[in-house]
């Protein structure tokens, strides 16, 4: 193919892979059920390389799929229209740490955990901590606007993006934002690119805000005999004006799986668990944690504990950390969703998820970030069983429906990609889809950048569920 030769001239042939092993191993991401072979896998070395690649792709109408570590859960990097998979393995440097302006400039291929460790060694802090941070890239985090355990108190990736460099589908390079706390010069193009999932161009450099590292941290845990009690605890903590660093939730099914996997001695009759963490100035942390444990007990917690040492904190966190592992071991296929509701609706949502699972006879357990209403209903199934998969898909459609009915969204942090594109209209309506399409059309008229993602060929008809 002529265009492959042209790209080889730009980056050097050793950075263009077309072997069957490469085409296959870049045919998937972490999303079950989506796989397609690209035509080439390309590792550019600079923004300029990418600009030239973009022009070649535009001139030959070849799809361009930017890919970090391929851990997204929305089929965002499965090259379902073929074309080029664009990697950032050669663009993975930390370029500048600016301690005067508390910010850091990086290339998109830097791994999230490496960035966190780098700044923490210097007494600084980058809070967004998706569970996949050991392997996810900053480019992927920015393009998905990823959240994490610390989202309630510290916000998500978009709250830390100060500036971006990006190559647009027309081959132009734009720089937006800067080392500025305030900047209202024109439309906020940076905000448009954050969470764009590679559909509006390629992010090639990122300027991130840092904050001072909190000096102190404490962990506590509370078990409840009903969902309502745990939900009431969450509401009361927030209405008492306490914003904990993390407030994590597990339901009974998840705890059962964890217990079977790890034998931590979790109470058998508990319906819900809250893991509570606070960080900041020592005195404040102690007061907040004591108050939160108090609130838990007042709302009916049967067991509470506060870690006295880092080791004990590790033990308390072990269960929640192992949630996904424990669940994933139960059945061949694990589907991790992220329906999100206002936090006041958490108990309602968890109950609805349970009803939906029962009605469709599928196994779904829920854990997640109670503080910000971001739940992870996790379905354990077997993708080889076609009949069961039909029920799984129906169950998830009903879960999205239920979330929207409660004022929530179909995805809190994983993104739309190809997987959830048929449901996007449910959340943002025809008007929302129209406006988004207009933006996409204006920026990428030839549909080169990550085609097939975000916008569905057809919207799913909304399921009408008898709420029982």
């Amino acid at each position, binding site marked *: 193919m002529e265009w492959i030769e042209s790209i080889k001239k730009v980056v050097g042939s050793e950075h263009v892979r077309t*072997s069957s092993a*490469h085409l*296959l*191993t870049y045919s998937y991401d*972490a999303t079950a059920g989506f796989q397609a072979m690209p035509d080439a896998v390309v590792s550019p070395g600079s923004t300029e390389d990418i600009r030239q690649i973009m022009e070649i792709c535009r001139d030959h109408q070849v799809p361009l799929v930017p890919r970090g570590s391929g851990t997204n859960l929305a089929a965002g990097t499965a090259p379902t229209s073929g074309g080029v998979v664009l990697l950032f393995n050669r663009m*993975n440097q930390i370029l500048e740490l600016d301690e005067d302006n508390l910010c850091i400039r990086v290339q998109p291929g830097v*791994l999230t955990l490496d960035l966190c460790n780098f700044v923490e060694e210097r007494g600084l802090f980058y809070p967004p901590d998706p569970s996949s941070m050991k392997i996810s890239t900053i480019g992927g985090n920015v393009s998905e606007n990823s959240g994490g355990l610390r989202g309630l108190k510290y916000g998500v990736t978009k709250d830390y993006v100060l500036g971006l460099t990006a190559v647009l589908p027309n081959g132009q390079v734009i720089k937006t934002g800067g080392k500025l706390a305030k900047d209202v010069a024109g439309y906020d193009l940076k905000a448009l690119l954050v969470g764009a999932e590679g559909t509006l161009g390629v992010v090639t450099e990122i300027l991130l805000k840092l904050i001072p590292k909190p000096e102190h941290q404490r962990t506590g845990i509370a078990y409840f005999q009903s969902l309502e009690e745990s939900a009431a605890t969450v509401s009361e903590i927030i209405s008492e004006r306490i914003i904990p660093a993390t407030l994590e939730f597990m339901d009974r099914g998840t705890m059962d799986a964890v217990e079977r996997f790890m034998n931590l001695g979790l109470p058998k009759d508990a319906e819900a668990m809250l893991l509570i963490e606070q960080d900041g100035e020592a005195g404040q942390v102690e007061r907040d944690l004591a108050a939160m444990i108090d609130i838990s007990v007042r709302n009916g917690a049967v067991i509470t504990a506060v870690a006295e040492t880092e080791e004990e904190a590790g033990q308390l966190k072990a269960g929640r950390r192992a949630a996904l*592992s424990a669940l994933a071991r139960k059945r*061949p296929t694990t589907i991790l969703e992220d329906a999100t509701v206002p936090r006041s609706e958490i108990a309602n949502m968890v109950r609805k998820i349970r009803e939906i699972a029962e009605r469709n006879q599928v196994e779904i357990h829920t854990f997640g970030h109670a503080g910000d209403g971001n739940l992870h209903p996790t379905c354990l199934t077997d993708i*080889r069983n076609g009949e069961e998969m039909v029920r799984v898909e129906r169950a998830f459609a009903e879960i999205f429906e239920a979330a929207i009915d409660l004022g929530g969204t179909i995805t809190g942090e994983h993104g739309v990609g190809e997987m959830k594109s048929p449901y996007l209209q449910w959340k943002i309506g025809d008007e929302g889809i129209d406006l988004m399409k207009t933006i996409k059309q204006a920026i990428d008229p030839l549909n080169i950048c990550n085609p097939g993602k975000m916008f569905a060929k057809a919207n799913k008809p909304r399921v009408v569920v008898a709420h029982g």
Partner: protein
Amino acid sequence: MVSALQEKMKESFVEHVSEELLTDCMRCGFCLPACPTYLMTGQDEAHSPRGRISLMKALRDGQVLWDGSIEDSLDVCLGCRACEPACPAGVQYGTLLEEARHAVLDAKQPGLKEKAVRKIVFDGLFADQKKMKRTVGLIRIYQATGIQKVARASGMMRLLPKQMSEMERVLPQIRRKVRPAKPTQTYKVAFFTGCLMDTMFQETNSRTIELLEMAGYEVDIPANQQCCGALHGHSGEVPKAKKNAEKNILAFNHQDYDFIVQNAGGCGAFLSEYGKLLDTDEARTFSGKIVDISTLLMKAGFDRQLQAISKEAQSVVTYQDSCHLRNVNGVWEAPRTLIGSASGFTYIEMPNAAGCCGSAGIYNLLQPEMSAKILAEKMKGVKQVGPSVIVTSNPGCLLQMKVGIEREGLSGQIEAVHIVDFLYESMKNN
């Protein structure tokens, strides 16, 4: 056009590689940062655990056809199994790799060079202890006389002159046979001597017994033990591995013992998986009794015996994990605690001590380039710590670290030793 080999390969994968185990992988990518070959190739997914599993599955499902690039991906895998503890879904990568290599071997005639290495290593050296001793005997003559001809006669030198002669240079001087143990009290322990350890590292083996006795164990060396079969298993020679396993279970009448102890991480891991390999209750009971020397010494509180000796710390010691001891058997703390308890040294952890050293069975012979790259990276970490001693728990790692020291021109400054020798010297210096 689908070639006959490609057709055969697909069938072979269907026959040998378990679909159940393949579907356990949810492609989350959490194993990638743990994989040395992924990191050393500049994050090439084709050289990652997730990539290899997806290739195995695609071959099995007929999504891709066998070719050189896929072969390369599977061949470059170290089999270090660092991907397993990193995996949230409990994917049994080690088993999948064995199955895949079995499938490949079944479908394809190995290449000439590989065949020669396999023949010498598997049918010759490791199949039975006697031949092994003969070869080692030859190497000893070589060491004593410097007559290269003799080493050539063993067939090894000719194949890969550079790697082998490097290996040969760092081989220990081979000494007398292990003397029988003197019984004491408490737990009854059977010692799995290991074929490499029994031939090239005899002194380490006698010291293993002495250490165990100092710790209060009663040690036996059952006769008729065989090579554990790990090298066979890891290279796809599963039937041969099974044969060795059966012979060993027979040789170790395990009802007689509380533990079966070994001092080679690679063998230990394989012995502890006989249960999985043979899928019999007998094998599972055998595997349940397998323990490594460090864990057994810790069980007897040997760290306190070491601490009782007081001597000022004069130099730095560091530890290179045995991949399989750590990743398969989860043992990493015991050796560190023991080394840290030895007097006369300060223990400093080297960066990425858990990462494979590139020895990986016969990997350093089959994939010399990648092995050298990994070793060079490892030596960078070693130099940061600046130890006078690097302690290891496996003969392969020990030789590899010696090669590393040699390559960096650090002989005389740094010494690589087996943990048994390190602990023994610490006790003896009392």
